[in-house]
């Protein structure tokens, strides 16, 4: 078996198990009370972490690049209550523009 197949099958099996563990372990019974209390707060915590990670992280380095310009511009139009499509277009457009101007 090639290295590619080993990686694909190992990562695929692990990911399916990781994603499915919650629903298989907690089948037909509610989440433990402590866990259930945390769940509504998981979205803001993880969303903030995803924003930070996908804006400013490159591997283990914290970087400032064109993505930050795009996300900052998106934040501005978001504050002005622009629709989601506009927010996404502004993020992409500003990041692309910053890159064209030489930002990493």
């Amino acid at each position, binding site marked *: 078996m090639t*290295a*590619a197949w*080993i*990686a*694909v099958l190992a990562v695929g*099996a*692990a*990911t*399916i198990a*990781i*994603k*499915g*563990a*919650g*629903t298989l*372990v*907690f*089948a037909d019974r509610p989440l433990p009370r402590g866990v*259930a*209390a*945390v*769940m*509504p*707060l*998981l*979205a*803001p*915590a*993880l*969303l*903030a*972490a*995803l*924003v*930070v*990670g*996908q*804006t400013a*992280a490159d*591997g*283990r380095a*914290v970087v400032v690049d*064109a*993505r930050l*310009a*795009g*996300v900052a511009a*998106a934040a501005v139009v*978001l504050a002005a209550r622009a629709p*989601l*499509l506009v*927010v*996404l277009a*502004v*993020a*992409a457009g*500003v*990041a692309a*523009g910053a*890159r064209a101007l030489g930002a990493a």
Partner: protein
Amino acid sequence: MADQATQPQGGVRMTGRRAISGDAIAGARSAAPIAIAAALFGASFGVLARDAGMGIVPPIVMSLTTFAGSAQFAVASVLESGGALTAAILAAVLLNLRYLAIGMSVAPALRGPAGRRLAEAQLAVDESWAVAQRDGRVERGRLLGAGLTLMVAWMSGTVAGVLGGSALGDPADYGLDAMFPALFLALLVGQLDGRRSRTAALLGGVIALALTPLVPPGLPIVAAALGAVFALTVREVRR
């Protein structure tokens, strides 16, 4: 897709023998703009995987089974640079560990036999999970509608990239890599309805940023889940 959405629940509309979930359509619609970016990143994954010597079928199988961009790029990058197989697998698993937490938050929304729940849980990716949030819970119809939309886009992109290369070049040239954090930011703003949620977001962001240089990629986001736990200690003030 209609078959996936036949579960009786709020928002289901019967049309003849088929039930079409308005929620699934709403989820698909929310995911549509980001699906364009997902398709182009799928294509660039296909190109990178081909360059990394992964062949044609393995990258396509990977997009179907792993269905998580960052982990797939990590595997292809490590193999492309001649890195160790175990390092590639470990990096990908670490990047996907956050799905333990996401899978638990999805669990209460899923019903039916174990095989079906397991399959539906696979449609939870960061973006579909994010757009499926409703009143602090995951809404199943939206999760499946958004997840299937992104799956189709990711698979189509991967196949195109593996077979034909990406005629469009690097998605980053179009700033598409900034679309994902912008989506998460827009969805985050809608979540900030009280002191606890704002504390969770602040802690999650700070933890992720602080840990980025210190631990392998993937773990900062896993650790950010602790922000949700710490936020429980704050007295709730809704606003």
